[in-house]
């Protein structure tokens, strides 16, 4: 970039932006903030650092106990784990092979069905599936916004 042009551009944009006054805050901001102050969120809805000290100590103790149990438990089962796993793996592999055969048969049947049903029907199915997906996405978004809605905030 040309340094002289860049400087000129900086001056121009600086002049434009420095002339901007503050925006007017929405009228609802004052009310909703005062309401939030009068009715603070319960401790469990706040971040961990804002929980009461006793609850923080208890939760920390629980977390440490859970880690200790997991650590001790792992060392207790670990020696027999590999042997046990190899014993259990063999029947599972047989099951996997059967499942693969089942999937192959299903795929073959699907190909046959597509060949017989025709393109129009398949296209209609695809459109229906896309419509259903869009409906789920839309409803999901709406419910998330409803769940996270705050007083005075527009949902859509």
């Amino acid at each position, binding site marked *: 970039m040309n340094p002289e042009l860049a400087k000129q551009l900086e001056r121009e944009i600086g002049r*434009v*932006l420095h002339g*901007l006054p503050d*925006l007017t805050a*929405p009228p609802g901001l004052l009310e909703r*903030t*005062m309401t939030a102050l009068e009715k603070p969120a319960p401790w469990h809805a706040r971040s961990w650092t804002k929980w009461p000290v006793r609850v923080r100590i208890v939760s920390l103790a629980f977390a440490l106990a859970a880690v200790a149990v997991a650590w001790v438990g792992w060392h207790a089962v670990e020696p027999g784990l590999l042997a046990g796993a190899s014993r259990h793996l063999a029947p599972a592999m047989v099951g996997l092979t059967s499942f693969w055969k089942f999937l192959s048969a299903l795929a073959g049947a699907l190909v046959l069905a597509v060949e017989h049903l025709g393109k129009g029907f398949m296209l209609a199915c695809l459109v229906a599936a896309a419509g259903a997906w869009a409906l789920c996405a839309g409803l999901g978004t709406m419910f998330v916004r409803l769940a996270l809605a705050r007083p005075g905030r527009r949902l859509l």
Partner: protein
Amino acid sequence: MTDAKQFETFLRNYQDMVFSTAMRLVANPAEAQDISQEVFLRAFERFGELAGDPRAGGWLKTVAINLSLNHLTRYRARWSFFSELFHRGNAGEETEIEYAAPDDVEEQMAVSERRLLVEEALRQLPHAQRVPLVLFHLEGMRYEDIAVKLGVSLGKVKTDIHRARAALRKKLGPRLRNEWRPRA
């Protein structure tokens, strides 16, 4: 005067400044309002120190900037997909922005129209360009501080700001040359 009344007055005095800071960084009125509320909830926790302190404005601005940047990094990517689906439909929300009226009534229309154009152009900039530009020109931060704040290289900050300026100039066009000269 009770604490609640004092705080309400404090909030009235600073709400425009806090909202503007958040709005220009996140470019979304609803999110800027959430951030402003959070700023004032934090201010209430320290109201004993902030009340009557001339540095309260600076403290509020710093918290507003930090919360806006946290919001952009933490939530924007997570919700961008569904948010963008509805973003286009929120055009009406964007036009709700208002400015304090200038003293000269005759020029009120032209001035607010120009300001609206600049704000609109600012909001249309990509987030990666708008944020460093706002931090530099409106919040008065240095390039080095912006790079540290955003966790990017100094070169990237300079390039993004330059691109943002060029994009703004392109959007605002001849208005820059004719209408924004300082008055004698």
